[in-house]
């Protein structure tokens, strides 16, 4: 089989994974199914990053998101849903509006961004990690540091918020 076809299949699979996962998150009735969907979505995104050529990013996505955030979500659900969770109703009064606006935003954004994408051919290329490290520690150093601070702050915040009533 030609690599092109393989590529197409791979891309399609990844895309499908993302879509199914997202749809599950949005439409699932049971919370566990939602978690599974979220996991699938995040995996698919990691794959997409890899397909685009951002290896490190894909790995980071895997570790941080699939590994970290998903677990967090699970934890939160465990903590919060005591009794058997009542089925949350799916329809709300702003369904239609939400759908319209979501579609609208996506549509217009597509129109606006299309020309940039058409201009170039997307081909899989691999970026090295050395280059990434060099960038992070030199030209984007401030951002890197701030990101670290942000992580620290988030950590503190989480501890503070979820500390609960001590009295």
């Amino acid at each position, binding site marked *: 089989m030609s690599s092109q076809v393989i590529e197409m299949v791979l891309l399609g699979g990844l*895309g499908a994974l*993302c*879509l199914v996962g*997202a*749809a599950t*998150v*949005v439409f699932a009735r049971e*919370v566990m199914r*939602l*978690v599974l969907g979220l996991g699938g*979505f995040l995996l698919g*995104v990691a794959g*997409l*990053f890899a397909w*685009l*050529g*951002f290896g*490190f*990013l894909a790995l*980071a996505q895997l570790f*941080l*998101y699939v590994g970290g*955030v998903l677990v*967090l*979500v699970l*934890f*939160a659900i465990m903590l*919060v849903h005591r009794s058997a969770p*009542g089925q*949350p109703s799916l329809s*709300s009064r702003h*369904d239609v*509006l939400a*759908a319209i*606006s*979501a*579609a609208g*935003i*996506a549509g217009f*954004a*597509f129109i606006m*961004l299309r020309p*940039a*994408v058409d201009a*170039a051919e997307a081909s899989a*290329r*691999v*970026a*090295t990690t050395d280059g*990434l490290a*060099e960038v*992070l520690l030199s*030209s*984007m150093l401030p951002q890197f540091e701030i990101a670290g601070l*942000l992580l620290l*702050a*988030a950590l503190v915040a*989480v501890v503070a*918020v*979820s500390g609960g009533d001590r009295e």
Partner: protein
Amino acid sequence: MLALGLVLFALGLYGVLSRRDLVAVLASVEVMIGAALVVLMAVGAAAGGPSSQLEAAGVLMLVLAASEAAVGLALLVAVARRVRSTRVDDLTEVKG
């Protein structure tokens, strides 16, 4: 890929706006963020190739998103303990 990313984004947005359970809302937010990242990376790669700078930016954004998820979930836990519910309808203190 652009189209895919935007569709994912739309899905996530819809979920944020219409799900009645807080956990679902937060999960939808994660979907939105992921989708946005995809779109960003795709357009960036198409425009100038998979550069290190772009990747670095992406990583940093990932960090941001992760922090947000953590804090959001912590808040969810705190609020749910208070109100003893995760249904959006029960959070009405700002009403009026």
